[in-house]
């Protein structure tokens, strides 16, 4: 285990000014290190802490939508312009956004793997829905408690609500 912070000895208060040996953690701490490069006039932006992930992503999505609307407008207007211009504008691709970059869901047929061992799983247990590799794994599944079965399913991403 990493050593705990207090590796110091408290100086005996007898008037002699012996400097305290800083604890290990204090040596690592840079709270009191001089940081002259910071601008003292900078006031912290109130905006900074307010956003969490969900808000940021929604904001992005909004922006993407707005941008796409604008593009569509432009393109429609450009349709009325002559041929050459149209070709130029058509090659302008959609702007990539954080949310638009995300990969789509898979279209390949899903491979079935055993929830317990990870080997191939041709069979599914009807009551819990767990996939299993062979007879002996089936015996094991039968002896699982319902919460353990739910944990296995959650590892696969299936969250049964009522079982």
């Amino acid at each position: 285990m990493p050593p705990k912070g207090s590796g110091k000895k408290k100086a005996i208060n007898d008037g002699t000014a012996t400097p305290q040996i800083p604890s290990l953690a204090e040596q690592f701490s840079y709270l009191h290190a001089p940081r002259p490069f910071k601008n003292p006039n900078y006031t912290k932006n109130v905006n900074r802490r307010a956003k969490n992930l969900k808000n940021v992503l929604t904001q992005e999505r909004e922006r993407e939508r707005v941008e796409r609307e604008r593009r569509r407008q432009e393109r429609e207007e450009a349709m009325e312009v002559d041929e050459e211009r149209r070709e130029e504008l058509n090659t302008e691709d959609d702007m990539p956004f954080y949310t638009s970059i995300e990969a789509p869901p898979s279209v390949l047929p899903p491979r079935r793997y055993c929830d317990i061992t990870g080997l191939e799983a041709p069979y599914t247990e009807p009551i819990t829905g767990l996939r299993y590799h062979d007879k002996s794994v089936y015996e094991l599944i039968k002896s699982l408690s319902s919460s353990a079965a739910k944990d296995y399913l959650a590892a696969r991403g299936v969250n049964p609500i009522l079982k």
Partner: protein
Amino acid sequence: MGGELNITRLPTPSPPSLETSDSYDIHRSQHTPLIIDNGATTLRYGFSSSTTPRFGPNVIAKYKERKNNKPLLLFGEGIDSEGGAKSQAKTPWEGDVLLNFDALENALDYAFVKLGIDTPSVDHPVLMTERLSSPLHSRALTSELMFELYSVPSLAYCVDSVMSFYHNNLPKTSSPFTSDGLVISFNTSSTSVIPVLDGKGIMNYSQRIPWGGSQATEYLLKLVQLKYPNFPTRVTSTQTSWMLQNLCEFATDYPSLLKKLKDPLNLRASERIVQFPFTLPVVEEKSEEDLARIAEKRKEQGRKLQEMAAKNRLEKLMQKESDLENLLTLRAARETEGRREWMNMLQAEGLESEAALETTIKKLESDLRRVRKKEAEDEDTMQEEPTFPLIDVPDADLDEEGLKEKKKQKLMKAGFDARMRARREKEREREEREADERRDMEARESDLSGWANKLRKDHEGIMNKMKGRARRRNELSDRKSAAAQARMKNIASLAADDRVSKKRRKGGGEDMFGADDADWAIYRQIVIFGKLDSNTAAGSSDEEEDMNQLRAIEEKLLAHDPSFTPEHTHASISSQRSALLSAFRPQYEEGDLEGRSRIHLNVERWRVCEAWFSPAMAGVDSAGLGEVVQNVLARFPERDKGKLVKNVFVTGSPSKLPGLVPRLHEALRPILPPEMPLEVARAADPGVDAWRGMADFAQTAEFQKVSVTQEEYEEWGGERIKRWWGGNWNLADISS
């Protein structure tokens, strides 16, 4: 059991070492570009003139020490120095998005302090990384931090993987960057595919999979916890990521690997064992003298108790003798006193009549006699037949008291007769059993194999019967099975109104169920002994009988038949674990604490990495790496496709996992035309090359052209950047 087990000890974490600050003198007033690779796991920073960056885990903690109330600010590995700080650790990144700017500010502070910067502002042009298509919020606040708090003169953003690609395909000096290739970037919380054509990153055709190193670590942790639900120690994420980095790899062909691992021997051969630290419980060993002393003490106590008991008995004896004396005098007094007075005296003693007096006296005398016999250690003589004289005397001759006596004696005689009968029966049974055993022994001695065969057949028969019963019980619990339906029919017929036939109804009109003992047998078929799971012991008397018979047969076989080993017994057969499961998760004895603190990784080693190519198996609804590459390539014409696949480039720390390059080759080869050359390469140093690429770029003239200066920042705000080949193309840009 010995043999070579592939045991790797979990490394003990080494204490963090204090980093020294660099000397700033070389860079003072030099305006050397400052390169910051702001990664979600590691922060790499340095001046572009260095060959390697400084780095540290990108996490800070603000902690107030309890003991002396000193506030601490710790970065990276320094957090390990203080145990309580870990819970306060914050990272600037939340998954893939830069959100916590307070943490970012502190991290950058640390970086600048270590670089030794002591000027009133950070007077260097900065090149920083950002996520592919980073949300504008993140960028705006980062720019604000850099320009307003640190007053940098200029700032440029880039995508880390493209810079790593640049470093590995460096153009000759002062010629533009025109390489083509497909960059696959492995980051902490995502994996992205970015096509680069003619030196320009084509960001809008790139795709990102929300699966990265951190998700893989979590998945491995979950798998380990499911496999070892009763593990003695808690497994932490740091330990799991160590296991991931050192023991896991990509399988070139996952389905065929699984087919190979189906065999328990291969499973055992492929496993890696991680030994976790454990503490042996201290066993207090009592020395010989201690044990002897304890035994002595116990004997003493026993002796003392015996003495006390003997004393008690003696006292009671005394008491009884004195009582007897009393009563005898009372009886004698009958002659002397008058009738009524004598009755009063009797009642004073608590006796109702003369007969009661007699019986009490008799009892006391017999008790005393018995005790004296015991003390004289006589043998237990056969009880003489008590005489019942009054039974034969007809009723008319006796008075009231005599009648009562007679009834009592009749009862006593009946009891005595019954006892004699029971004793005789027991003796008869014993004789029969002995005769059986003798016969059995003769059969065995004469024909051992025949006898053994017969017994073994019986053994099998009983086991089959038990299995059949277990199956029937399981069927009963399934509502739709034939057995359950038959049971319902039985219940319904019992409860039917017309159970009593017409004839009977004329006679009495009552249901005569139960008068005949055989009727109750139907309950054996109706009652399900609870929804017990198949492992509980016998639930009904039938099953108990079967178990007992089975046990008796097994004992005989075990004792006399050399070929019937304990493995054939019912107990061992029912608790047998399949070979596959024992190879998958070997069991250790109860007391083997060292063994129980081991984690065996066999299938997990490849299963976790397979999730990059198929995130659906871990619950993430996204296409896998192979499919995404296919999607990205599909948007290009054939000619460009050829240019891209000739130089497939893999970068990022998670790409250090072995087996990735062959796997990608296998995944891409089938989807491309056979004559198209396919080359997959990995960055020379997947973790640091991004920084190096940035350092290289910062020394070119182009760097200044793509940076946003302070004035430009003040005019446009933090979200706008200049569009260039290595940076993002987000909304606000100016075509260069």
